[in-house]
């Protein structure tokens, strides 16, 4: 039964991919048939993109690694800062009500506005990428973990109190483990966004990375256009892999949650 469902899922996925490709070819052919001399540059055929990916493989991978590595580091920094901040916030209601508005306000700052400012401050592409990726990550994580740290039921807290466990031990043995599911739901959102943040810095004045590759390709005329698409697809695949990596980490580190468990009643 499960096998049959899985087979059906695969069939549907394959059908969707084929459908999208078919539409793409059709539209690209339509554009090419028009009288726009730059048609091929605007919407190249998929096989042209694949071809370009293979030709420029080394250059693309180098840019991808630059974007991915800084995104990952920023993601890690943002995660740590987010967890620490949320632990601080749940210590007292007044700390939370004092800090939460700033956290939500920070979430409203458009990244497009923040990137030039931080470029001016850091005067360094890598530092800016780290900062932006960390910034995007930290509030997703902080908002989620604050909720997670409060998720233990009141009797669990009373139980810890009956063992005369202080704040630190209650945090370690009860609240932090109980916050794991929320932490991971924050990380799932933040992981692809941290990558987008890193690439945004390339797009706004960086000189390496996938974003730079896109920008450069656009600047150097229609012949380079497929490279823009190559960079976009690589970005998409990396984002997908990052999200999958978070899900895998969750399965390993918090397999006990209701959504993950097997053999339960």
């Amino acid at each position, binding site marked *: 039964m499960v096998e049959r469902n899985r087979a059906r899922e695969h069939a549907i996925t394959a059908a969707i991919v084929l459908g999208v490709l078919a539409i793409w070819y059709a539209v690209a052919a339509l554009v090419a048939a028009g009288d726009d001399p730059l048609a091929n540059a605007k919407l190249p055929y998929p096989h042209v993109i694949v071809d370009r990916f293979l030709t420029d493989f080394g250059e693309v991978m180098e840019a991808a690694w630059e974007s991915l590595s800084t995104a990952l580091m920023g993601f890690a920094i943002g995660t740590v800062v987010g967890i620490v901040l949320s632990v601080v916030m749940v210590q007292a209601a007044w700390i939370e009500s004092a800090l939460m508005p700033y956290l939500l306000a920070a979430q409203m700052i458009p990244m497009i506005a923040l990137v030039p400012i931080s470029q001016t401050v850091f005067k360094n592409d890598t530092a800016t990428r780290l900062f932006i990726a960390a910034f995007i990550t930290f509030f997703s994580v902080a908002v989620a973990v604050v909720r997670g740290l409060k998720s233990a039921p009141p009797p669990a807290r009373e*139980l810890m109190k*009956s063992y005369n466990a202080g704040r630190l031990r209650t945090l370690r*043995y009860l609240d932090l483990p109980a916050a794991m599911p929320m932490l991971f739901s924050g990380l799932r959102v933040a992981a692809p966004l941290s990558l987008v943040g890193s690439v945004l810095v390339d797009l706004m004045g960086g000189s390496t990375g996938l974003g730079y590759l896109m920008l450069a390709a656009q600047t150097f005329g229609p012949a380079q256009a497929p490279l823009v698409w190559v960079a976009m697809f690589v970005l998409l695949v990396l984002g997908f892999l990052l999200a999958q990596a978070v899900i895998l980490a969750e399965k390993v580190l918090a397999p006990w949650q209701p959504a993950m468990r097997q053999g339960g*009643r």
Partner: protein
Amino acid sequence: MREAIVAAHDHGSVGARPSAVVVSEVSKVFGSGPSAVTALDNVSFDVPKGSFVSILGPSGCGKSTMLRLIAGLQPVSSGRIEVERHTPDEMRRAREFGIVFQQPILFDWRTVEQNVALPLQLIGTDRDERARRVSEMIELVGLADFRKHRPWQLSGGMQQRVAIARALAFGPRFLMMDEPFGALDMMTRERMQTELLAIWASKPDTTIIFITHSISEAVLLSDRIVVMSARPGRVMKTIDVDIPRPRTDQVRRDERFVEIEAEIRELIFSQEHA
């Protein structure tokens, strides 16, 4: 008023034993001003050492609050509670209370074994001693085959047995149970009641304070029953149960059992119609 009859059960007469807990004129008010709610009003009773005392009453009579006051989880508004000549808070800090709630409150990220080990870990019991006590407790509650299981893989009754093992693992002088079988089905519930008596028999020095709204449960298990009325919570009567121990399922058909059950039922209904 019925005189407590001295009977041959393993704990001796309740009335003759020294008090482990003395509750005198305790009131508890939640909130303040016009929205203040009186949960307990001038409550007094005694818990004899090594006895099984139930606090019985309808929902809203403040019986769970009473348990939390004795366990030092909340302060009284007025009155006094003495536990072995100490304040509840002192006794809590000395880790003399093992608590079992209506929900088992097991940690999903820990196995059965690790859940039972939790209080020992917090106390700082060394590894060997911890392992010895955990396996002793798990055997006592009959879960030897499930030590590596996760809580959600167990039935409700089994989960509650893990909670009892955890509450007794660190050897507290008091076992406090807040409607521990309230969420179980009737058949599991009755089995758990006799099982609790068997577990208690192996730890006879433990004093048990048991919160329930089931009259038959209270009569079957208790040496003494504190019957409470609701809104505000007051003690209607304290009744000593003189049915000899060890008590088994047979006791439910015992003449004395039926008599005491009827007495309490009448008491509660007379209050409701007043």
